[in-house]
């Protein structure tokens, strides 16, 4: 570990590397603030992180361990000076994730391909019900874990060990079936090629995050893919939602009359009409019914285009429909983009921007307490995990580090239910197996949540070839398992599903709940006014909440500065040639100005296809 000490004076100290904190870090460094950015964890992006398969197993394991002893509050009062008071922080990570459950349905290589036995099925079901699930590492490694159950953890080890035994047979066994079966050991062996996000969101192509990435030039650190299609689940079938003009006309499922109706509706909805205002306050569904579009179209428009529920008011439904349409055609056939290597890249990209502008980064390092200046009630310094006093003018902190009793949270706390599946086929096979799909799943039963599902193919670099990574998300009604397993059972082949041999098989899945960050405000907590609280991920599909919050924190800190002005392009930096000579240390890190032979493209890394953005006019 770094023996080197940290500098002891900064303008802004930031604790936590989630999206909001990282954007604030980049924004502050960019305009010349001295930023120290810390995270207690060993990885970037907090609850926005993505993990390799093995990394995710570690993460799961840590959720299962008993919560770390609140480090005996070390007494730092010796560091206090006259007129100062301590405010202790707490460990992040403690409470934001709950109900972690893991199931593995992979087969041992040796095993012949046979349908899962009833015992396994029962075991899986039983495991889900009973908290004290016994170890069942017979054929499928069947793991059920609850937070704070230590023994269950060994169970998982057994499961892994069982998988590793088969390691020798790395090459897939001869196919008796059309689909190749991926074994657990293969998941482990190639685990580093997975990038599994804790959060599942998409980027609206005209959303605030894409705008910010482009505006700040942070976008050059990442590559993106179009979400290639929007699907929906209707009457138990998965169908493609036609949303662009090309889709509508190319659709085989729509009749000519429907095509015309849909086009007319999409064109008309852009302008506000009297008819629309007349429906203000009444459900959007009523408005859609009035248009006599038919069940088919109504379903698409409500669930997949507006992405609202049956009782959403018309004005809200129209607003989301318009947002959807505005985002269409900027980059591709759908309004959404997804970053290659997963969403966890995005906070890292902002952190790099901060570092490039002098921000200092230190993981596995935290702040134990704040020093309050009693004369003006401001936080004047922090004490880090090594007992070093670091002065700062502003302190930005991830919500999880703020002690509960100091936090004001909207109650009741909302939470997000998440499921992550590794499957062996797409929910809707198409001519290309490299599709990125958003699947909207209306409630499976009255009172059940609306589920959003994102299916990622291997070229997004989030899973290995031959598999798909499927993220399910909804606002929690019950536990993640209760909310999402009915959808999983219905749309996939698991030991619990019946007669679904044709559906994609689930190889491995994870359920968990995460606190919905939308209930946390930047200020208004029992904290000094120059301390800003950043929320974790919210349940929305886009990133508007996080970006808005980051910008508002920045405006509080630096009201007169521009938020994330573009970083210069490498080729545009003029080298002035007279940086101050001084002490001869040959190198400090950081990057030097670059003068570059002119006339080359201004792009950043990568070999990807150049920007597609000019196809503005294409749609609707």
């Amino acid at each position, binding site marked *: *570990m770094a023996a*080197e000490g940290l500098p002891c004076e900064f303008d802004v100290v930031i604790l936590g590397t989630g999206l909001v904190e990282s954007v604030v870090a980049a924004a502050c460094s960019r305009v010349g603030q001295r930023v120290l950015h810390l995270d207690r964890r060993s990885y970037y992006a907090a609850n926005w992180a993505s993990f390799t398969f093995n990394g995710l197993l570690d993460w799961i394991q840590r959720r299962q361990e008993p919560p770390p002893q609140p480090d005996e509050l070390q007494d730092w009062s010796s560091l206090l000076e006259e007129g100062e008071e301590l405010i202790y922080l707490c460990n992040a990570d403690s409470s934001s994730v709950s109900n972690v459950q893991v199931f593995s349905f992979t087969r041992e290589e040796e095993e012949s391909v046979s349908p899962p036995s009833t015992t396994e099925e029962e075991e899986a079901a039983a495991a889900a019900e009973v908290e004290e699930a016994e170890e069942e590492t017979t054929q499928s490694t069947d793991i059920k874990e609850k937070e704070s159950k230590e023994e269950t953890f060994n169970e998982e080890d057994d499961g892994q060990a069982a998988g590793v035994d088969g390691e020798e047979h790395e090459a897939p066994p001869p196919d008796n079936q059309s689909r190749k079966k991926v074994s657990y050991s293969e998941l482990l062996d190639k685990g*580093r090629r997975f990038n599994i996000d804790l959060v599942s969101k998409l980027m609206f192509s005209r959303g605030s995050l894409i*705008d910010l990435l*482009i505006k700040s*030039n942070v*976008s*050059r*650190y*990442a*590559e*993106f*893919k*179009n979400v*290639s299609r929007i699907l929906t689940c209707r009457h138990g079938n998965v169908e493609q939602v036609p949303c662009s003009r090309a889709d509508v006309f190319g659709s085989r499922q729509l009749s000519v009359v429907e095509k015309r109706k849909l086009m007319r509706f999409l064109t008309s909805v852009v302008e506000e009409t009297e008819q629309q205002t007349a429906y203000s306050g009444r459900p959007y569904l009523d408005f859609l019914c009035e248009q006599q579009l038919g069940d088919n179209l109504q379903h698409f428009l409500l669930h997949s285009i507006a992405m609202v529920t049956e009782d959403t008011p018309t004005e809200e439904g129209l607003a989301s429909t318009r947002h959807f349409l*505005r985002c269409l055609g900027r*980059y591709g056939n759908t309004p959404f*983009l997804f970053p*290659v*290597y997963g969403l966890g*890249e995005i906070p*890292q*990209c902002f952190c*790099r921007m901060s*570092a*490039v*502008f*002098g921000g*200092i*980064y230190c993981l596995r390092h935290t702040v134990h307490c704040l020093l309050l200046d009693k004369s003006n009630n401001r936080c004047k310094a922090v004490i880090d995990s090594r007992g070093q006093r670091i002065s700062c003018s502003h302190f930005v902190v991830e919500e999880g580090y703020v002690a509960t009793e100091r936090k004001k949270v909207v109650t009741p706390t909302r939470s997000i239910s998440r499921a992550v599946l590794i499957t062996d086929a797409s929910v809707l096979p198409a001519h*290309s197996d*490299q599709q990125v799909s958003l699947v909207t799943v209306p409630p499976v039963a009255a009172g059940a949540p609306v589920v959003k599902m994102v299916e990622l193919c291997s*070229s997004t670099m989030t899973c290995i070839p031959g598999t798909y990574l499927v993220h399910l998300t909804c606002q929690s009604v019950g536990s993640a398992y209760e909310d999402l397993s009915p959808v999983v059972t219905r749309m996939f082949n698991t030991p619990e599903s019946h007669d679904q041999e044709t559906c994609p098989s689930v190889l491995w899945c994870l359920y968990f709940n995460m606190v919905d960050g939308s209930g946390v405000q930047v200020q208004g907590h029992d904290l000094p006014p120059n301390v800003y609280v950043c929320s974790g991920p919210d349940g929305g599909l886009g990133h508007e909440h996080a970006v808005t919050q980051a910008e508002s924190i920045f405006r509080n800190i630096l009201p007169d500065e521009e938020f994330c002005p573009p*970083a*210069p392009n*490498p080729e545009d930096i003029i080298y002035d040639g007279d*940086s101050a000579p*001084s002490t001869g240390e*040959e*190198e*400090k*890190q*950081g*990057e*030097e100005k670059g*003068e*570059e*032979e002119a006339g*080359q493209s201004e*792009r*950043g*890394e*990568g070999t990807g296809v*150049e*920007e*597609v*953005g*000019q196809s*503005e006019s*294409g749609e609707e």
Partner: protein
Amino acid sequence: MAIRELKVCLLGDTGVGKSSIVCRFVQDRFDHNISPTIGASFLTKTVPCGNELHKFLIWDTAGQERFHSLAPMYYRGSAAAVIVYDITKLDSFQTLKKWVKELKEHGPEDIVVAIAGNKNDLGDIREVPMKEAKEFAESIAAIFIETSARHAVNIEELFQKISKQIPPLENPEVDSNESFQLSRQPASSSRRCC
């Protein structure tokens, strides 16, 4: 001639001369005091190689290595990595293994690795024998070269060697949904569709 963009990431302990090597390669200059806060995301230089042009996009650690906090995104899509040590500091050579391991963990699988023993103008206070370093490089099938950013020794050669090791461009599979970069473009915000 076709231009191929190749991302190269630099690794190595703080102070071994990573930035100086890039600075020498790209601008052919040497600075005793490189300011960390200039804000270049990466530097680029294009060199011919066979019938291709290789445009190196050279990423510096931006100091994130200092407290062992390099982000995995730093390695994404790199065609090559240059691990730098200082021939006058044994420590910096001993940590090479750690960087190699880190690269194995986070770097692309087919990455070209080069090991550069920098500051070879300071041979009189050398702590790392060239033979030992060379053997280590061979053991991991890495390129090995000693350089001096200060005296412009072997800097061009380092990148030439990398160029030669870059596998020829395969015919990219036709993927209708290829990844791309976003870039600023004047028209983007000017009008909406419909």
